[in-house]
């Protein structure tokens, strides 16, 4: 299955992926999403910065899937290997936020529900927005 991977050799910590991610999932363009929205959209990818090494992290769609196992409302499920969240079912208990070993599940801009990377399968972006927007090909979408 194709997943998003980050090569930390090329990650510049420019944070553009976060902005492209947030805008893509808000369904608006960057300017509307960040300048003309009541609440700024929250990205589902986060750049971890160090003095020498940087890398962007988002849901690994990992083997153990502790978030799915822990979800009390049945909102998280696996569709074709992708861990997706049904926002209508999420009750905002944040069990998944606590159980994700990568810290990849975030609380949405409204502060009531969670949101997570679904490899841009639910928006109109096609290929993941973070991959498309990375200026240094540090983020790739490939089979490994």
């Amino acid at each position, binding site marked *: 299955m194709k997943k998003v991977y980050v090569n930390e050799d090329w990650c*510049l910590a420019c*944070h*553009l992926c976060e*902005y*492209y991610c947030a805008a893509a999932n808000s369904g608006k363009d*960057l*300017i509307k999403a960040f300048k003309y929205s009541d609440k700024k959209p929250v990205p589902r990818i986060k750049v971890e910065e160090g003095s020498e090494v940087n890398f962007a992290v988002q849901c690994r769609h990992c083997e153990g899937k502790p978030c799915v196992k822990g979800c009390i409302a049945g909102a998280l499920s696996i569709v074709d290997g992708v861990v997706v969240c049904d926002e209508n079912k999420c009750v905002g208990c944040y069990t998944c936020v606590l159980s994700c070993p990568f810290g990849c599940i975030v609380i949405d801009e409204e502060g009531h529900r969670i949101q997570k990377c679904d490899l841009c399968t639910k928006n109109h972006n096609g290929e993941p927005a973070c991959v498309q927007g990375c200026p*240094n*090909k540090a983020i790739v979408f490939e089979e490994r």
Partner: protein
Amino acid sequence: MAVNYNNPLFEVIRNPDRCIKCRVCERQCANEVHKYDADLDKMIANEQGCVDCQRCVCLCPTNALKIRPNENQFRPNGNWSMQLMDEVYKQAGSGGVLLSAMGNPQNYPVYWDKILLNASQVTNPPIDPLREPMETKTFLGKKSQKISYDKDGKAHFEKTPYLELDVPIMFSAMSFGSISKNAHESLARAATALGTYYNTGEGGLHRDFYQYGKNTIVQVASGRFGVFKGYLDAGAAVEIKMGQGAKPGIGGHLPGMKVNEEISRTRMIPMGADAISPAPHHDIYSIEDLRQLVNSLKEATGGEKPIIVKIAAVHNVAAIASGIARSGADIIAIDGFRGGTGAAPTRIRDNVGIPIELALASVDSRLRDEGIRNDVSIVAAGSMRSAADVVKAIALGADAVYIATSALMAMGCHLCRSCNTGKCNWGIATQRADLVKRLNPDIAAERLINLVTAWNHEIKEIMGGMGINSIEALRGNRLMLRGVGLNQKELDILGIMHAGE
């Protein structure tokens, strides 16, 4: 100093309707021009450090940025340009020699732009390169003059070492030190994929790049950095650098600050020590001395590799080239005054040397007149800006060309001419690890391959239009060139007729 004599050269124009305060400009500017002010919730700019490298503009996801020349003006003066005044203030503050980078940007004539190309009409039909074979393969080296036959009638040629190029374009010398390791890797990978050569420059060959040896020209310059038997053996040819178009008569100086562990290992000098290339080779004071070095290098490489001698285009270039052709060198590279550099004294870069077009034409004519043109190949360098320049250079007599500035541009360079600061925001002319990683060789090599492939397509198109199907038939074919707006002397030197003749 409370008084700032030097105004910023540029101003940052930020469109507030577009800026989303993502701060990518701030993170990507090594000159610390952009800053997010949390109190104001605003991006602000300190333009003093701006060099107009366009990194922020290119990375800005909403096209909110523009960099413009500073509109602030000194009182206009026909004699004292703003730049000259600015330089006086700078030197009055520093007491030092002004440093610049890349090629001479001053407003001297560009002869390429005053030469037009021919095309076939009616009598000699043009050729469609998409339908018919079109040859751009080029061989560099001594051309065998004599064919002898043995008693069985079998032909025997004098065999001399040569370089085989799929395209008549090579990447010119840029040392590891002046450019980053990632930039070197990109050039090496692109040259390999294109079937041409890149040049190590005077900084030695990084151990990781020996694998690209058969597409590498190794350079021996006056500092002899990183030169040893393994290095000479690694390359396909050895280039002796006598001069550089951007700074004829001047050596090189890589500040110790840039000499990190990798560069120190590659150049074989202590870490942190300045790498100073002397202006002359201390063992070369005559053509006879040069001949000795050519022969030494031939001997060291078993006579299997062609030897290139690179010189800057200066006033008596034709006589010098004639001497080089007689020194046993296989290839002469001539670097015009527009050629780039990682750092040069501004006054030298802007005032020394001559245009490559005139130098190339006069060298080619001189070698032909003396009947020694076939003893050497000529490589022209020093600002080949497009495929049209390449075609014109070959028609003026070059066997191939070196490109470097345009290669750097393919990798992202925007000609801000600040290589000497070591803070290249594009990861090219820097050794700072956080900046070097901005140049991903996967991307840069592909862009280099694209550029040269595109130029090669264009060369074929232009040749096809002339009714020529092989680059050999274009070489030195000055009948394909006509001058516009040139005086008789210039036409005579270029050896071309005026348009309409």
